Every structure is written in C-alpha cells, then in structure tokens.
C-alpha cells in the first residue's frame, strides 16, 4: 500500500474549516446526521449511538479527538458510516462529505511532527487546500479523554 506506485482512494470530508481524508474502502454509507442516543460515561469523542441496518453504530466526533474548533451550529452535519469488520461499525460526525479521490501514495507525506499516537498519519495537497489523512483505527485506539464526571 505504501509503495511508490500505489494509489489509495480517499474519501475527503470537512470538519470545521479543516479538510480530512479517510481510506474510502472503509466507508459504508453517508447519512444526514440523525438524533443519537447519548452514552453516559463514554469517552468524550463518542457523540452517541445510531442504528443502521440492524446494527448499532457509535458515532464519533473527530473534532473532539483532534481538538479542532467547530461552530456550535453544524447545519450540514453528516454521519460517515465506516465498516471496519463484520460487527465493527463506526460513524464519524463530519460537517460535509467532499469527494472521493485517488491519491498516489507518494503524494502523501508524513506529517511534520508525529507523536506516534496521533491519528493523523499523512498529509497531501488537493486542489486549494491541505488534506490530513485520518487513521480511524488509531483514532479509536489511542487514549481518549473520558467525559468529565459531574461529581
């Protein structure tokens, strides 16, 4: 995958004013954001649960995980549903799904400063802006701050 000739298909989306990309292979569905069921005590990135085709899909907010600013109103909020495995479904809360593009692996650069834990594993230039490549698995595996408890 990381060879110089390989081309990776990315799905790009917007979170706040930032442009992110994720391996398009994992994208199962794009839905208009719907009401979620809150999950008390869950990591702060977990927005809540929706169900889709008989499955319970936790929706995560990359803005919280990455510390990106978002406006309070997210009029075009969208759920980007990812399928990682048979029973492993997740959704990303994004502000807009932009495009699906093929990016030569060679065009993706390592981000300047990686702490080894950052879920942002690459960066490439598309059209008029820089796109960060998000490793979703890493995003859910790396430590997440629990939601502050009210006590």
């Amino acid at each position, binding site marked *: 995958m990381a060879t110089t000739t390989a081309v990776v298909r990315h799905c790009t989306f917007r979170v706040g004013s930032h442009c992110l990309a994720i391996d398009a292979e994992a994208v199962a569905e794009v839905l208009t954001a719907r009401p979620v069921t809150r999950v*008390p005590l869950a990591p702060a990135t977990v927005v809540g649960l929706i169900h889709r*085709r008989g499955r*319970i899909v936790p929706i995560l907010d990359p803005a919280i995980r990455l510390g990106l600013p978002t406006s309070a109103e997210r009029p075009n909020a969208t759920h980007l549903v990812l399928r990682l495995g048979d029973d492993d479904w997740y959704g990303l809360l994004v502000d807009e799904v932009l495009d699906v593009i093929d990016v030569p692996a060679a065009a993706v650069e390592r981000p300047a400063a990686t702490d080894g834990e950052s879920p942002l594993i690459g960066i490439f230039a598309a059209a008029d802006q820089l796109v960060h490549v998000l490793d979703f698995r890493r995003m*859910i595996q790396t430590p997440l701050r629990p939601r502050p408890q009210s006590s």
Partner: protein
Amino acid sequence: MQDNSEFIAEFLVESADNLDALDRDLLALERTPDDATLVAGVFRSIHTIKGNSGFFGFSKLGALAHAGEHLLGRIRDRVLPFDAASSAPLYALVDAVRTILASIRDTGGEGDHDFRDLSRALTAAAEGRPVAVAAAAPDPATPPAPAVASEPAPEPELRTESPPRPASQPAVQPPAVVEAPAPTAAAPAETTIRVDVGVLASILDLVGELVLARNELRAIDTEDRSVSAASQRINAVTNALQEAAVKTRLQPVDHVLGRFPRTVRDLAVACGKEVRLDIDGASTELDRSLVEAIRDPLTHLVRNAVDHGIESPADRAAAGKPREGRLTLRAFQESGSVTIEVADDGGGIPVTAVRAKAVARGLISAEAAAALSDHDVLQFIFEPGFSTAAQVTSVSGRGVGMDVVRTNIEAIGGTVDIDSRPGLGTTVRVRVPLTLAIVPALVVRTAGERFAIPQAAVRELVRLRTDRDGPRIEGLPEAPVLRVRGRLVPLVFLDRLLGLRPDNASDADGTVVLVRIDDHEFGLVIDGLRGDDTDAGHALVEAAVLTTIVVKPIGGLLAQVGMYSGATVLGDGGVVLILDLRGILRTTRLPPIPPAADAARAGGTPFSDRYLLCTTRGGRRIAMRLADVARLERYPRTELESLGSRTVVRRDTGFTPVVDADAVLDTPAGPAPDMARLVVLGDEAAAVAVEVGVILDVMAAETALQEDRAVTVGQGTLALGGRAAELIDHAAARRRAETGIES
C-alpha cells in the same frame, strides 16, 4: 484441493453427525445386540465415512473405515455376535475417526497418528480372534492406501479387499449394495437444510429493519381505510416473520445431550459402575449460542452424577437397589426458558454433612443453619468454598466444581438448583433463557435517558412514596437502602452512577427496580419506567412486561465503559443502551447478600414466585404468575370478535380466545371500556387472553398460595402488597375459555 474446501467442510460436519449417530447406535446395540436395523445403521454410517474419505483421498481414514465396515459386515451377517470383543474396537474406531477429522479440520491433513494397531484389532475381531492377537493380521487396504505388505491370510474371509465373501452367508451384501440393507429405515425425507449462520443473522437484521419501517407506517394517521387495512396486514405479517426469523436461531439441545450416551458409557466403564442413561426431550430447542454455553456445565453435572452420585453395583445391591444405576437427562421448555434436569438415583447428598460444612466454613451461623430447610442447605454446594477436592470427599464426593457450573449458567442468565434425598438420588435443575439475543427487558427512564434492564435479573418494582407510610429511601446518604419485607437492600442511583445528575439531586420519589444478580441484590433508583411522569404505575408495569428487545453488540470502544452489555432498538426507532448489571456491581462494589438472607429469600424459584397484580373490570384484585404471562396487549373492543359464546381476538399469531377475568372467577362483570386490556397467558397454541381492568404491579407473594375454591376455579388466594389477591392461572383461564365454546 482448494476447490474442495467447501465440500470438505461439509464432509466434516456430516461426519460429525455420523459419529454421534454411531455412538448412539453402538450403545443401543449393547442393549439389543440382535437388532438388525441398528447394525445396518452403524454399517451405513461407517460406509458413508469410508465413501467420503475415498472421494477426498483421506487414505488413513478410508482404511480404518474399511476395516470397521468389514467387521460390521460380519456382525450384520451374524457370523459374529455383537459383544464386548467385537464392540470394543468399534468404539476405538469412532474415537480414531474423530481424531482424524479433527486433524483434517485443523490442519487439512489426516495427521500422523498411527492407527495400524487399531486396524489390526478390527481385522482380528472380524476374524473372531481375540483382539490382542495382532501381528498376523494384514493391514486392511483400501485402494488409496497400498499398505498390503504381508498377506498371511489364514482364512479367506479375512481378506478385506472387498467383494469376495463366498461363504455360507445369505450373501445379502456385495459392497456395491451397501446402502440397501435397511430399506425399511430409508433416509427420511429431507425436511432440513444447512444454512450459513451469517445468512440467518442478516435475515434477522433485515427483519429488525422491517419492524421499524412497520412502526413508522403504523404511526401514519390516515383516514383511508384501504391504507390502514394494508398497514394492518403488513403489521401482522411482520410480526409473524419476526417470530419465524427468531426461530431459525433455535437448535435442539440434542446437540449437547446426544454426546452423553457415550460419555456416560465410558465413565461408567472407567468407574466400574453400571449406568443406564435415559434422555428425554432432546428435541427441545434453545438458542444456538446457548446450546454451546451449556455444554460444559452439563458435562460436569453428568460426570459428577456417574462418578460420585451413582453407587457401585455392589453397594447398590446391598442397599436393595437394582445394580444398574439410572441417570436421567430431561429437557423441557416453559414460558421463555428451558430447563434441563440431570437426575440420578444414587446415594444422594448427606444434608447434615453439608450443613456442618457450611457452618464450619463460616458461611452461616449454626442457628441459622439449623433453621434452613434441607433444600436451602443443599444450595451451599454451589458456594466456591465447597469445591475443592479434599472437602468434597467429606461431602460424599459431590460438589466438585459446582461453583463453576453455577457461574457459567448464571453468566448466560440462567439458574441452577439442586435437590437430593439421601439414598434416593440427586437432581440438578439447570434453567436457561430460550435465547440471549432476544430477551424480555424493562425499559426505564432516568434524567431524560432510557435504558433497558434484562428482565431475568429483575425481582420486583417498588414505587417510592413521599408519604410516610409508603416505601422510601432510608439509611445514610452515602449508603442508601430500601426496606423490603424486613430486609435492607442497598440502592444505586442510576442517574448519579452514570453522571447524568449531580449527587445531591433530590430523591423524594421515583421507582426502585430490585435486581438480583449472582450473589447480589440491589435496587436501582430510576425516575420511572417507560412512559411519562404523569402516567403512574399501570402503564409502567405494562411496558415492563411488554418489551422484548433484540440485544446488539456495541463494540469494544463502548464495552470498556463497563456499564453496558449492548444496545437495542425499540419500537419507536430509538436506540437504548442495555445496562450491564454485573458491571454496575463491579463499579459500585456492593457487598453480596449474606447466604442466610439469601436462603431466606422467597424460595428457590424466584421467577415463579412473582405475580402480575391487576384488578378485574369488576374491581377485584387478581394475580397471575409472571411465568405464565406472555404479553400484555390492548385492543379496541371492536376487535374482539364473538363466535357464539366464545370471544376471540386476532393477534399476530392467529386467533386467541379471550376470557374476562370476572368470568373466570364467576364474579359479576364490570363496565367494558373501549380499549380492552388483555393479559396473554401461555405461548402461541395454548395462549389465552384474560381481559383485566387495571394492571397494578409486579410483585413477589408474601404468603404461600392457598388453594381455596379448588379445582373448579383452579386458583387460590395469596397476599400481594399486604392484601389478598385471587390467582388466575393459565389452566383456569383456558378452561373457562373452553367452556365458553360449549355453552
């Protein structure tokens, strides 16, 4: 070869079935060695394995099966008797085939076990020579295994090659015709097929989606009759479809019980006992995941029974019992759960020894122990303290690993109960829910969020009152308790536990869900059940009994929160988290209930002691066993159809007879509201809907049932919530519904 993998997988499954059948038939043959049909069955099983292994080129397997087939041929042709000498190598053959199949499954190859001795033993047995004589016998060779080296062949029949069987036998059997010998027992018509579990799961998922779509459809308010009629039909079909889809998950418990004849035989031989095993209800169905989950606990119980329960033949004879001990496995289904009994007629467990041991181990005080019934004392067998070998010998060898059995069964929402009579035997009753994937649950509400609690753990619902007399929260703010019939039950505030509200929130009213899980009992304080604040008790309890949820996994990320065991989608499309009561226990570190209090709790079968408390339309207090209650439903009175003197309602499953509760009690009927509130008792075919006035609560009885008015009415009276209520049981309601037809 890789093209074959699918077929090989099928071959493995089929062969496993064949082997189970073989074990069964061999055991049956021990009893009736002359049964030609059985011999033919065994022959066929072996032959099928041989044929398939030849097809796939499993030569070792083929050679063994061939040798076995040869021996069986001679038994079938009555050249040899079926006795210990001829059966021993056959049992060994079954084991060897299992070993090879396991190797094929795991590695794709036959493995390098050496079965030549077994081959020789089979061949020798076929010659009618003692099995021990091995050397002279040639390797029986099927075409793919050109192993025939020495061929001393003292007798012509010994040649296992194939056709030649000259001799005097009725020659029924040239190998080409092997399928023929039992035309009477010809394969029954195929009524089952093998289906990938994944396909079934996806069907179930899709049905779930359909149910939601159906709900949306129902919510549409329309004046158009044809639309509402179509919607009604879709509704009925969807329900039926859902039920059918759920059934596809069920599997007969025979998948577990079918192995036991062999286990018992081997154990009995090893222990020098004579044991006869009877299996009853092997076709009882259970969710496939649970069938697997009960395998180990049941095996343990069966081993215990043979090893420690049933006495040696000599001891039995001395005690005036038949030398042969009896072990009975009985499976049956009753309202949403399956019970499996493991009963032996052995020496039983000396209750006095258990009592003494419980006191000695400090599990209970001597006075308390003396006050306990024998049945309650026996339950100590399941305490971890009773499970080490040294202690077990002093308790007549019973109790090995019984705590593990209980832990495993409780982990799948089941219960275990033991009964024993000295000298007469021991019965262990394992009760598990029909399915884990679809369970009845209570949907509760707190701080504006909804959560589901599996009903199996729910003992009782208590509504807190602000007035002085009613149930209220006592104890220190840090350790709140609720007084329930003299016991103090610790309380957990769900809203605070989940960080939904600050710790100092008011707790004046609300509802307590009393739950019992493992050795713990606690009350979960919630705002209310499903429904809204103004809607008090009745509708709430209704929701409690009504909701059947499909448990869905929530993934590792959320599982690590430790408070939720899954999630479900409710009829309104909303996702609701299922509370993990064990997780809550771990988090809150509540102490277990002391065993004494535990034993003092209302009897050993909590579920059957719980009642749905209602009134009749005429205002009388009535109770129905929760175990009998299948659903609570409401129908417009116009949908109750009269057929002569009988009333029926069309439900999802067909027509169900309806009977007014007052009619069951022979008391005057009350006013008939537009909406009929029905309590459906019993499952499907036996279902009967009892019309009631108001549903009050779910409670445990405070007194034992007192049978008055006896058989004609078929119920009794009990105390619920400090007042008497008359019982209406399923049989009584059914009887009344049927007399309705006659009159």
